[in-house]
């Protein structure tokens, strides 16, 4: 371990730190807000996960056993919305809040009051959404909660949507405003607040990927807001953007939605690329291979993500030329993604590897994300996509990318930076249990989905034909196993929050580089009031 003596006695900051409820409600401190984001996203992860288990309980056997098909649809809808907007996105925003100022040597985020606001909108947005579900659950399914899938295609969500669709629209608007403000904050911070000498091409890759993510957010979240605004006016103010009867077109909704939706996928995964690019070099004790090509690959993925959206809708009946264009562009996007994976492998190559918890999660990410990426390449081929589209094959694909991809990388980040956040090392025994259980169960959960999908089971089905029964049983077993395994992570986090565990040094990982490791653990309330000097 590199000898860093700068520990103990950093109490000098405490007279700045407010206490009690006010500390959290009115906080403008990037670390406190980051902590709020992370706990909030974890809570949402558990709520959304519970909904997934309701789905899996119903699908364990053919037949309708646990819930009504109507409530089943509400579960699939709200599970998706919560996981995308409540779990993955806020978690990465939380990481950005905590780490970006520490990584670029800034005292705080550039717009701290806006930072407070962008977090505190979120609990209200999700209270509205979850409130609709609770009303439905305790009212025996009446009034119905949003039940049209997280993609809320018109006219199912407009002319045929339940009354709670208006709550959903309000909630999505609030999430959108929160994300846009969070993204603006990241961009301003990265562009203006870097310590002297921290040039753009010296920034850690996590900062780079988040900067590009933030630009994507500013570009597409308003488009989502536009889509739900059009829904609102279609429902109540006599417009017909998406209603064929008034001269509109339901397919237009899908174009607008996926113009947002595809970049959204990269919004969720790009920060993960940054996390993994920080962790692998640390535990390989070797510099990241091809830093510059990583930056360019990220940027080209982001740009290409604007011209591939219609691959989500090959079956709506597009002209041949359009279909071919979107197929070629989609295939092309796998090139920069491949570059990233190869770079990580080359970083490991001839390093001096150790396998602490963050490294385990990061390696699981590389392998399983690659699985998801390769099935994505299969989905890009339009003629076969006609067979795969809207089946469990697609469900398997995006869960590999988002659960064993994005969420695994967030776990990796948590184990990597928890010493910095809490000042104690995460419990290794619980952490190992958490890792191995999650790794095995996530594959039992999602790998058989490829099989039932190829065999032809459509997604969002509350009941299914008998040839799908065997694998659905295994999938459900995997789901409950994975769900219960996450309780171990609750224990790990609570122990860290209670400061129970081995005290962490300023730089607990010996191969780690970067400004965040030059400040003590836990990071004091204020850091880099005087900008550090970058060599």
């Amino acid at each position, binding site marked *: 371990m590199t000898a860093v003596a700068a520990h103990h006695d950093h109490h000098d900051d405490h007279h700045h730190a407010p206490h009690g409820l006010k500390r959290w409600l009115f906080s403008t401190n990037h670390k406190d807000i980051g902590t709020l984001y992370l706990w909030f996203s974890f809570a949402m992860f558990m709520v959304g996960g519970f909904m997934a288990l309701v789905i899996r309980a119903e699908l364990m056997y053919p037949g309708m056993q646990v819930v009504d098909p109507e409530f089943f649809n509400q579960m699939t809808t709200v599970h998706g919305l919560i996981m995308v907007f409540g779990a993955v996105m806020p978690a990465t925003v939380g990481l950005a809040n905590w780490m970006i100022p520490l990584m670029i040597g800034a005292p705080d985020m*550039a*717009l701290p009051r806006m930072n407070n606001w962008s977090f505190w909108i979120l609990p209200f947005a999700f209270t509205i959404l979850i409130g609709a579900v609770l009303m439905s659950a305790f009212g025996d399914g009446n009034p119905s909660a949003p039940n049209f899938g997280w993609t809320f295609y018109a006219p199912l969500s407009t*002319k045929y949507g339940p009354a709670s669709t208006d709550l959903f629209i309000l909630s999505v608007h609030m999430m959108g405003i929160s994300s*846009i403000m969070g*993204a*603006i904050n990241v*961009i*301003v911070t990265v*562009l*203006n*607040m870097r310590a002297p000498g921290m040039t753009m091409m010296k920034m850690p890759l996590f900062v780079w990927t988040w900067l590009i993510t933030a630009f994507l957010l*500013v*570009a*597409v*979240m*308003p*488009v*989502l*807001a*536009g*889509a739900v*605004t*059009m829904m609102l006016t279609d429902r109540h103010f*006599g417009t*017909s*953007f998406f209603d*064929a*009867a*008034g*001269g509109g*077109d339901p*397919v*237009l909704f899908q*174009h*607008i939605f996926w*113009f947002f939706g595809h970049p959204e996928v990269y919004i969720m995964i790009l920060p993960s690329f940054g996390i993994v690019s920080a962790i692998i070099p640390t535990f390989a004790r070797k510099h990241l291979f091809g830093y510059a090509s990583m930056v360019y690959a990220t940027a080209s993925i982001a740009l290409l993500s604007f011209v591939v959206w219609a691959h989500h809708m090959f079956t709506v*009946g*597009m*002209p041949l*030329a*359009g279909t071919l264009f979107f197929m070629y562009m989609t295939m092309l996007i796998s090139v920069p993604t491949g570059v990233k994976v190869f770079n990580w492998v080359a970083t490991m190559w001839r390093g001096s590897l150790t396998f602490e918890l963050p490294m385990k999660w990061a390696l699981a990410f590389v392998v399983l994300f690659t699985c998801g990426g390769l099935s994505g390449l299969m989905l890009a081929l339009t003629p076969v996509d006609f067979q795969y589209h809207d089946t469990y094959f697609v469900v398997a694909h995006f869960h590999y990318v988002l659960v064993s991809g994005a969420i695994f990388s967030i776990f990796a980040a948590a184990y990597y930076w928890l010493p910095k956040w809490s000042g104690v090392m995460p419990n290794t025994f619980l952490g190992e249990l958490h890792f191995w259980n999650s790794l095995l169960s996530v594959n039992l959960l999602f790998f058989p989905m490829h099989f039932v999908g190829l065999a032809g089971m459509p997604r969002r089905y509350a009941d299914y034909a008998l040839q799908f029964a065997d694998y659905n049983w295994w999938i459900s077993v995997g789901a409950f196993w994975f769900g219960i395994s996450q309780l171990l992570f609750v224990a790990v986090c609570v122990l860290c929050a209670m400061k129970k565990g081995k005290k962490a040094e300023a730089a607990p990982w010996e191969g780690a580089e970067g400004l965040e490791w030059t400040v003590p653990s836990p990071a004091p309330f204020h850091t880099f009031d005087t900008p550090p000097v970058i060599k």
Partner: protein
Amino acid sequence: MSELNDLEQRNNRVLRKLVIGSVLMFGFAFAMVPLYDVLCDITGLNGKTSDTAASGEVQMDEDRLVTVQFVTTSSGGMVWDFTPQVRSVKVHPGEITQVNFQVKNPADHTIIGQAIPSVSPGLAAPHLLKTQCFCFDNQTLLAGGEADMPMIFYLDPALPKHINTITLSYAMFDVTERVTGNKDKLAAR
């Protein structure tokens, strides 16, 4: 101190640009509506035909014969009986043809209907031109009323060579609430 103010100014400048950027992107979502219509007109995406009358002055191509099929649907709870007088016609490109569609309102109240055209294959849509169509406006039928609605069209001789069958579909929607602004029926759903 001036250094701090300077930073704040720079932050606000970037902030302003980004806020403007996101407002513009919000506008872009709405701009996609007309953009999409233009794209549909060019490529025949979704088989939409033009909703205004064409001039009808065009050279007839007697060497080619194209089958035009007519399909009707009463959509979304519409109760009208809505049928084409003939199921299909064979026409030369450029030949002006009239087809009548019959509608009958079996309900005990007045209903306003709007027919929405759709052409398949979509590539043919820009080449199917109408000089007169009941679908240009909405139609009102009193309780028990009947009507013959004319549609006059011709095919543009520039129709791609490989297309020999065109299907023209009309979906008839009940737009009474939309036109009269009466939302009672909707609220009851």
